[in-house]
């Protein structure tokens, strides 16, 4: 039986092939489509999701965002992990 993915600083995440993430020109919005689910990530979530390429760890993503938003890495990581955990629990993200 598979186990629940618990996201930590070193976890590298990727959007599974059966989840579609992108910008919809008609509706002018970012959207994630998955089985029977449509999700609308907010601005920060979009930035984070764009960086979930299977190569960057959560800490690395935090470091990049820290530069952009001029905030401490720890604080950013603390903020994004629960959001990513929720997405992973729903099957919108997986570990690479």
């Amino acid at each position, binding site marked *: 039986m598979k186990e*629940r993915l618990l996201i930590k600083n070193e976890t590298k995440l990727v959007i599974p092939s059966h989840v579609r993430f992108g910008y919809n020109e*008609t509706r002018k919005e970012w959207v994630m489509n998955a089985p029977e689910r449509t999700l609308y990530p907010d601005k920060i979530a979009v930035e984070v999701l764009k960086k979930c390429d299977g190569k960057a760890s959560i800490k690395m993503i935090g470091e990049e965002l820290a530069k952009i938003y001029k905030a401490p890495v720890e604080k950013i990581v603390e903020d994004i992990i629960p959001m990513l955990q929720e997405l992973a629990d*729903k099957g919108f993200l997986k570990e690479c």
Partner: protein
Amino acid sequence: MLKKLQAPLAILAELSHRCPLSCGYCSNPVQLVQKNKELETDNWLRVIDEAAEMGIYQIHFSGGEPTARKDLEYMVEHANKRRMYTNLITSAVLLTRERLKKLKELGLGHVQVSFQDTEAENADHIGNFKGGHEKKLEVAKWVRELGMALTINAVMHRQNLHNAKDMIQMAVDLDADRLEFANVQFYGWALKNRAAFMPTKKQALESKTLVEEARKKLKGILVIDYVLPDYYAKKPKSCMGGWARQFLNIDPEGYVLPCHAAQTIKSFKFDNVKDKSLAWIWKNSESFNKFRGTDWMPHLCKTCDRREIDWGGCRCQALALTGDVGAVDPTCEFSPYHEKIFGSASEESHEEAPEFIYRLVSNKEEEPIKK
């Protein structure tokens, strides 16, 4: 009316009413569309174009059995090219691994396989298809091997609720992403067989608790969507997320419906994609506008705090059970019909279950068994 009309999120494309199974709880209309009347490939491809242009995100290929159409590949490919999220809702028994692989290559994202039970013999009896259960298990494994998302679609009722726990475990064992634990809904053909499928209240409540516990235990492993057993609820479900708010349904002949059971409402004129564009129909069709928003609601609903939560529940059910399509959904505890209708259903569930009538074309004139 809604303040601003948004495009729907998803389309249920009923490609064909043909189906190798003949489940007694089939929710398709009593009168099925014949093969020679099915919408042709070109029309479906045009509909997909129109849907993508409207900004519709998802297309669910359903039926009947969508794989009964040999041109399913064209539709999946086209929807994928138009960046729509594709989902196949199937009984799986007609699929080969090669065809599934081809569909995956053409962009199919998600496969939803129906299961009638966890015990092969009873499952095959319910679906009236020998060897069906075993084939479904095989197809479910292929779906995961090929890297697509898998949903187990389990219709639950009096004749299989004793295996509810095993159904959840089966979904885990098959490495499914999602389980749709759907208590049977009594629309279309299903209403004929209500007494044969109606669970007791005890059964329904026990399975609800079971699902709630499993959801906690299986967090991050299996997503479980639970469809309420209407007859034991006190509040109506938000049917289709509200009439003409998020979904539209296209029947095999091309008629565009607010939900798949809407044709039971005989007073409506439904529009067809052969005559009008999808966008026009969504905005202007009488059948969509009639119950859109909250203006149409009876006083009881209009003054209820839940009016924009359940959007007045299910219109088809209101019609089927009260004779008035605009009535309060009798699932609601405040409906004057609530106690009488659900009391008699509960009584039915305690009596010996009658044999159900299979969904066979030759059975179309059969009288309902229910009292």
